[in-house]
């Protein structure tokens, strides 16, 4: 057991650090206390940042060299991620493209599609989004209703997607549609690459409960997609989507990175605020602080165990879902204690001097228990695929989708 890098890892990390220092001036970086930048207002800088990192060899670490990647390991990818965070570089503008869309194109795209898209994606010449969820199909993705109908060499798409991160700055998206409503729900789907600038595509920001708009709605109104932009065979869309979703799992609930605030930041906050409470309240507050810290450390060190699996060449399995559950729980505990420690300011959306770190996290967390797999869906996955418990009876897997059984 050793929390330090292996010699190889240490060397790689040093190279990453050197590259970051060298290009420091060209990179968008987060100010102290800032957690993210808004792609709406910083699109150009974000694209430039990814391009610079790409040219420095820090993008597409695990991708094959033939598609513009570095042919590296998952652990090298994790090291790059850690160093980017340490260097306060915000999430790359094409993180959805790299994490989900690109791997899907690699697995299911034609040679022509791979040539046209992948290198540009890594350089952020094109930004990508993922168009799966719909108003009537959230957890139950295969219940989607957006249709694609064959018309000569094209398909004509109509419908609505929702929860689409980055759609408003995207050039392309991978789009899951229903092409045969007479088949059972999982069997009638087909995946496409869609040009987000095509006529009939409308993107509308979706405002969340905290007031911010991290997501969009996307409307398709007689949008034409050439058949050459299909990913996989007609009716094989579900299998293609599973590739995407398996890659999503690698991305979320990750290896040793916290959901919400890092525990060190929480501890600093507690250090500043605890002494302002009266002594009995300090006793109670320390219980809440301790509980949150234990949860955060438990999630962190469990993440390190997953990272070790990567380090040894393993592939993350469904147990990674536990990382999101435990990380979300820790984030809830920290946010709640963080807000309460504010005393009188806890009833406002920000402190008197405008600081809203803890209130913002508080209002963002209910969404985290839902987005990217609800707590309930994650528990199903863990129960069935890790613990081996039997699944629920399913009545919807065989009936034709149009039969009303959705």
């Amino acid at each position: 057991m050793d929390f330090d890098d292996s010699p190889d890892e240490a060397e790689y990390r040093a190279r990453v650090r050197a590259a970051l220092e060298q290009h420091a001036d060209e990179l968008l970086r987060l100010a102290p206390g800032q957690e993210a930048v808004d792609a709406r207002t910083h699109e150009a800088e974000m694209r430039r940042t990814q391009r610079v990192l790409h040219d420095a060899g820090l993008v597409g670490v695990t991708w094959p060299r033939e598609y513009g990647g570095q042919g590296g390991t998952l652990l090298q990818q994790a090291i790059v991620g850690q160093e980017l965070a340490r260097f306060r570089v915000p999430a790359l503008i094409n993180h959805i493209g790299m994490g989900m869309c690109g791997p899907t194109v690699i697995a299911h795209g034609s040679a022509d599609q791979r040539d046209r898209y992948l290198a540009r994606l890594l350089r952020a010449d094109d930004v990508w989004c993922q168009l799966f969820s719909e108003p009537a199909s959230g957890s139950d993705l295969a219940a989607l209703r957006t249709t694609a109908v064959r018309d000569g060499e094209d398909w004509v798409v109509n419908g609505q997607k929702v929860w689409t991160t980055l759609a408003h700055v995207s050039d392309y998206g991978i789009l899951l549609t229903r092409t045969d409503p007479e088949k059972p729900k999982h069997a009638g789907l087909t995946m496409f690459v869609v040009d987000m600038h095509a006529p009939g595509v409308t993107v509308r920001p979706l405002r969340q409960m905290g007031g911010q708009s991290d997501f969009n709605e996307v409307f398709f109104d007689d949008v034409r997609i050439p058949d050459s932009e299909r990913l996989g065979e007609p009716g094989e869309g579900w299998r293609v989507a599973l590739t995407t979703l398996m890659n999503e799992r690698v991305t979320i609930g990750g290896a040793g990175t916290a959901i919400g605030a890092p525990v060190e930041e929480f501890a600093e906050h507690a250090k500043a605020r605890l002494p302002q409470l009266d002594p009995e309240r300090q006793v109670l507050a320390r219980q809440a602080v301790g509980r949150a810290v234990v949860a955060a450390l438990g999630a962190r060190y469990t993440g390190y165990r997953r990272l070790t699996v990567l380090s040894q060449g393993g592939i993350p399995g469904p147990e990674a879902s536990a990382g999101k559950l435990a990380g979300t729980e820790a984030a809830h505990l920290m946010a709640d204690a963080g807000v309460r420690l504010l005393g009188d300011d806890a009833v406002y959306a920000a402190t008197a001097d405008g600081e809203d770190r803890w209130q913002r996290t508080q209002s963002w967390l209910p969404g985290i228990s839902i987005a990217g797999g609800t707590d309930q869906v994650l528990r199903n996955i863990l129960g069935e695929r890790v613990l081996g418990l039997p699944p629920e009876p399913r009545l919807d897997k065989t009936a034709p989708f149009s039969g009303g059984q959705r």
Partner: protein
Amino acid sequence: MNFDLDDDQRDIAAGARDFFRGNASPAAARAGLEGGALEPGRKALADMGFLGITVPEQAGGSGRPLLDLAVVAEQGGAVLAAPSLVTAARAAVLLAGEPELAARLADGSTAFAVLDGPVERSAPSVDAADATLFLGLDGGALVVGEGEIVPGRPLDATRGLASVRLTSRRVLVEDAAELWARARQVGAVVMAAEDLGGADRCVQVGVAYAQEREAFGRRIGSYQAVKHMLVDAWVGVEQLRSLVWWAAWAADNNPAELPLAASAAKACAAATFERAASTLIQVHGGIGFTWEHDAHLFWRRAKVDRLLLGDEAEHLDAVARLAVSGALGA
């Protein structure tokens, strides 16, 4: 044994429900976050007689028991009505010896707020943001005065929270500690009643959605994870209703029980409303955490109310102290 509302109270509740549904809504609470006016507003509440329910008849009120006010408050809470009836209830206790001021409270001609904490710089206080006359506790004395208002960025706009510095003060009652404590307990009961209304509404809306929404070929309410979450929230609401009724009843009929009952109700309200609102969001999935859905407005109210008039920890501590000193009887 008759632990239920009587016919009068049922009528009052039905009337209040109709009024609040017609004159307030979560949509107004949403608009309030961007500067919109609060609904139904002080004047409408006064016109309905709600501000004076517990004000004596001689002072222009209805002289009714707190329980009547609590059933009205529950209906207001269900639609996130503002301003809160907490101020009316609390001020009515404090102004028992001031019929002229009490009349201005009841008819809505003066916008009162009751200040928590020191009058030199109060804690965030309910509906202080647009009040013109303030009641506060100043070195053991009840004072009334005007003040300078410092609002914060609202988490829940309907509570009209602001910190106030009194710029003038006149003593109304010299030795007011006990009166003040009772008024705060009464306020806690009314806030618990508003939270009851909010929590109950969360369960209703969540149940309705779970009855309709389908996933994986079944209505989501058929899944135990969803069903049991809603049931637990509902069981909590039922316990809260019992404690609110008991506390409101005790205020008029067994004042010695009020401190324990008020703290029990307020502690239960804090946890119950927060859970019900979180459940409402979770049951809705994605749509539940959008700005346009009402769920976060209940959630915001819950996040704020749990800390006002004493948080759960303060009231649990009070319940424990009172229980071990014999407040439950032998």
